[in-house]
């Protein structure tokens, strides 16, 4: 198992290198190149020259790349043109929010999706089945930001049940330790703060989790349908095992294999969706920061955030692979 993990970690290296190369090229390809990107169109030639010298942009490309890589490895992506703060600082300040949000969204998607998909498959052809299928199709087809608006209009504005923006009621003055607000609330025993922070996750979480939910329902349903027709399930029944045992050990477990891989892929969707959802819900995460960065053409932030998010994405998928390895013995030996 350990060797498996190590090998997968090693496989990351080329990916990460390629990523950095890609984003390095991206910044260089920008209109006016990095100097302009950092100094803006109004920058005087001298300023640009100074900048180029400062960051070694007068050097051959591979040297520049190595420097960039060196800085990237130390998580140095320069300063935001909008706020003038270190990109990395902003990232780690905002990432906890996004993690909380995506986590909630994922748990929502999994917690609802797998049971629903399972039931749909068991009641194959029933109204529950068809509705969940149609629902999941609709879920995939609805633009996230539109859904987000609708959700808030309904639950925050009309019904007033849930908070419709931000990470926490601003009037609550909670202590920050990790910037994971829910966690902080629990750590500092400010439970009202934790609860409030949690409530703030609900609407954006649902908006964000809808597409993964839809997909997970579909996958679960399909793979359960496959598994129930597998020979080994027949064997299990032939062994006269209790229905519960058959489901738990022989159906669900195998049915979850494909689901677990999709879950990995979904994180990509989530990080993408976060840009839209966080913006609509004025949720202080990396997503809304990227949105602002687009408007301000804040290239340093875009570059740094996208690179770091990509790394997060890659790592998550690694975790998923590992968990898959745990679930399916056949992968491990291969």
């Amino acid at each position, binding site marked *: 198992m350990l060797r498996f993990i190590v090998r997968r970690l090693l496989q990351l290296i080329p990916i990460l290198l390629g990523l950095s190369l890609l984003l390095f090229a991206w910044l260089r390809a920008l209109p006016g190149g990095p100097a302009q990107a950092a100094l803006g169109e109004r920058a005087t030639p001298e300023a640009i020259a100074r900048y180029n010298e400062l960051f070694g942009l007068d050097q051959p490309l591979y040297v520049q790349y190595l420097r960039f890589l060196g800085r990237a490895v130390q998580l140095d992506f320069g300063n935001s043109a909008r706020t003038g703060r270190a990109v990395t600082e902003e990232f780690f300040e905002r990432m906890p929010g996004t993690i909380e949000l995506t986590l909630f969204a994922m748990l929502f998607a999994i917690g609802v999706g797998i049971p629903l998909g399972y039931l749909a498959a068991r009641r194959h052809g029933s109204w529950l089945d068809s509705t969940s299928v149609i629902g999941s199709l609709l879920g995939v087809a609805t633009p996230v930001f539109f859904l987000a608006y609708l959700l808030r209009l309904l639950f925050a504005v009309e019904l007033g049940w849930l908070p419709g923006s931000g990470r926490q009621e601003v009037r609550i003055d909670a202590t920050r330790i990790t910037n994971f607000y829910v966690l902080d609330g629990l750590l500092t025993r400010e439970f009202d703060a934790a609860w409030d922070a949690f409530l703030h996750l609900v609407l954006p979480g649902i908006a964000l989790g809808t597409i993964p939910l839809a997909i997970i329902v579909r996958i679960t349903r399909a793979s359960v349908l496959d598994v129930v027709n*597998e*020979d*080994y399930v*027949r*064997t*299990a*029944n*032939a*062994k*006269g*095992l*209790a*229905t519960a*045992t058959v489901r738990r*050990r*022989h159906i669900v*477990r*195998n049915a979850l*294999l494909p689901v677990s891989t999709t879950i990995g892929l979904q994180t990509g969707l989530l990080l993408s969706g976060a840009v839209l959802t966080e913006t609509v819900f004025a949720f202080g995460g990396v997503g809304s920061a990227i949105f602002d960065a687009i408007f301000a053409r804040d290239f340093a932030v875009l570059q740094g955030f996208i690179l770091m998010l990509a790394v997060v994405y890659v790592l998550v998928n690694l975790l998923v692979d590992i968990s898959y390895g745990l*679930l*399916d*013995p*056949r992968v491990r*030996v291969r």
Partner: protein
Amino acid sequence: MTIVELPPHGDDRTGRPVLEVDELTVTFARKGEQPTHAVDGVSFSVAPGETVGLVGESGCGKSVTSLAIMGLLPRRGVQVGGSVRFDGHELLGASDRTLRRMRGADMAMVFQDPLSSLNPTVPIGTQVTEVLFEHREMSRKEAVDEATRLLDRVGIPDPARRLKEYPHQLSGGMRQRALIAMALACSPRLLIADEPTTALDVTIQAQILELLRELVVDSGTALVMITHDLGVVAGLCDRVHVMYAGRIIESADRHDLFARPRQPYTGGLLASVPRLDGARGVPLHPIRGSARDVIPWTEGCAFAPRCDNAQDDCLTEVAGSTVPLELDGPGRELRCRHPLEYPRSPAGATASGAAR
């Protein structure tokens, strides 16, 4: 209709059959398609220690029969008729709970493809012990010991280690042995083996068959062997039922069957088995066409289209009645209007030849 009891040969034969299948019919009714009669009035019985073979080409309904007996057919779109009695208890229509209690404990089954029949994500050990937990309240430890014993008994070397391994880590033969071990875990009174060897290499086949034979002999388990392979039948079965298009078309004691097949189909089957002692130059005599060229029994003998002996009266509309399954000498039944005829001369060579 009932089956004439054979004069007991061999020991420990209580007259009472373990399994009695009577006029079993299985009908698949998919919506949109007209219903197909996969099994159409099949009757037979198995006594303790007896080995009965259900023989026929694929699609003739033998596997369906076995699943019907075990109650493993899907609920939706399937109608099962007739009666299946185990120790005199009716199984058809029995509650799911009773069936589950009996499966694995009183009657067990070994399937065709050992790889797909084993759960790839669960260690062999668990797959064996779960039966023990289910039917014989055992402690964790006891179960493991028992499982080890079972694997050992079915001839899996180093069972303790194998318990922890996953199906994909075992060879085909090992897997099949494991499956058998699971089937025997609670020493059932009835064992149904559905083509247990077809997925295996010839050498392994022999071993598995040998294993099954031993188990049956020294446990007195009743064995239903489902196969298309006459070799298997010859090696193992006491009594043979040849099925075609969902019906039994000939039943006989192994020796009689091989000696004097009456149904042209049976004859054909035997004739298609290559023989070493066959006269040079005499070509193999395969059966025309394929199992798909059948006609519904209601319209006549399903085999007629492929049959060389076929006559007008093989057809219902000519004969006025469907071809019945009738007594055909001692311990034999036959469904044919124009069976193969034999001169008085004993055709032992034939039997021994095929039975090798």
